[in-house]
């Protein structure tokens, strides 16, 4: 069990300046809970750039290759079909008619890959236990989770209140 402190805020700008103040005083911010993405928060917290976009590019390329393989195998290699007297029997000549398939598969794989990666990285699988200690942060409040570094609880609460938190909470978590 570990004691953690929460400063609760009701405005994103106040939250952002609170994060900056706490960071400048070298407090260890473990997590910030917000009901919606707050612009600039990732910079204030010093997060590294997400690799999700690179992953999505790779998923997209996978989808494109998959689409090429599929159309080539189905309509050129295994069972060549003459549709409307089009130049047949080579992938290059038929490429135009495969564009929609390739396009859709690229998007399909990129989108699903990204969502699945996101769920896996966040540990969200069926039956996952909820980990948000302050449920109000899913609707209208913002919370900063602070590791107390074995400091005096009173002191931590004072610091949080000095950054215009509307409320402070101390919870025991594992």
């Amino acid at each position: 069990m570990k004691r953690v402190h929460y400063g609760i805020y009701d405005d994103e700008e106040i939250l952002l300046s609170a994060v900056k103040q706490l960071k400048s005083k070298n407090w260890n911010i473990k997590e910030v809970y917000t009901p919606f993405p707050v612009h600039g928060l990732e910079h204030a917290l010093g997060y590294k750039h997400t690799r999700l976009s690179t992953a999505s590019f790779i998923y997209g390329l996978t989808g494109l290759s998959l689409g090429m393989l599929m159309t080539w195998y189905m309509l050129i290699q295994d069972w060549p079909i003459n549709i409307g007297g089009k130049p047949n029997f080579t992938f290059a000549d038929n490429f135009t008619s495969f564009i929609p398939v390739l396009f859709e598969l690229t998007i399909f794989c990129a989108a699903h890959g990204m969502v699945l990666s996101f769920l896996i990285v966040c540990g969200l699988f069926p039956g996952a236990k909820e980990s948000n200690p302050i449920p109000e942060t899913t609707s209208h409040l913002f919370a900063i989770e602070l590791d107390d570094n074995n400091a005096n609880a009173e002191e931590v609460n004072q610091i949080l209140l000095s950054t215009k938190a509307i409320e402070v909470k101390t919870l025991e978590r594992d």
Partner: protein
Amino acid sequence: MNTIDLKKIKTISIILAAIGMVSIIIGFLTDVQREWASLLFNNFFFFAIALAAAFFVAVQYVSNSGWSIVIQRVPEAIGTYLPVALVLMAIIILGGMHSIYHWSHHDLYDPNSEHYDPIIAGKQAFLNLPFFIIRMVVYMAGWLGLFYLIRKNSIAADFAPLGDNTLYKKNFRLSAIFIVFFAVTSSASSWDWLMSIDTHWFSTLFGWYIFSGMFVSSLVVITLTVLYLKSKGALPSVNDSHIHDLGKFVFAFSIFWTYLWVSQFLLYWYANIPEEITYYQERFQNFKTPLLIMLAINFVMPVLILMTRAAKQNAKILMILGAILLIGHWVDLYLLVMPGIMGNEASVGIHEIGSFFFFAGAFLFVVFNNMSKVSLEIKNHPYIEESVHHHS
């Protein structure tokens, strides 16, 4: 604006226009039809940039955009080229009528003539000179009138009392009208001025395709102008996020342009109906290399180069890619106009490049001249604070 060397820009543009003028005279002395065709597509290129810049301003008002206010004077200034472009357009279209538009020849409609063309005669209700001119006047009056009012209100708002939003609300309504008008007329004008060159052929997607091309070119020009002004210190409030948003616009609409190009091509290719496929047959037989290079430039390059966030914010990458994209969309317009008029005799030479210089000079002169007359920074706009503090 006072950090910009306006005299230098004006000198350069006058030199460009002078070179262009000389080449136009040479062009008319050597090949009249080719010169008219070059004038048409080069003028359309810059006209499209100005018109789409006006559309960009209207979109910002209608969507209640906050981010773009610090750069809004740039598309407003680019839009001021519209009157010049339209006057030139009227001169070129009316002067070069018979050289450019096959349908304008009277004997096509006469059943007794040996040139009688039943397909074109069937289109006479739409493609006849009086109605063509009426439509042209309507487009021009609508675009010029509405954009003139929008820009006038935007400038007047700088001097309005603080917190007075009446002019902003007026512009919101004017912009909504402009967008509806633009939606119809941008399509109709491209049928009239470009699609009717290949008179037998028609495409229902053509107007959208032309719109996407003009919007990409215009976004590139807006981005390049903003980057230029920023590098000279004339736009101090513009930060990385504004540049990032402009980069996103160029990226997204390049994909949109390709989407429409393929959509149009794909259906004709599938169907393979003789009167429809001739248009692409012409282009694929005689212009295959420029066509494929143009597609690669306008689609593959922005997609791969502008994909990352860092690239969209990088002034150097945007500048170089923007210049290349402008060439790509110039070639796109070339391929829309020249094959229909010149057939396989079309090439790129003094006619095409010379008239490009002329219009480029006129465009630079008008845009920077009008830009210098008003403050580049908008004051008293309801979203100006949001725009200054924009971060993404």
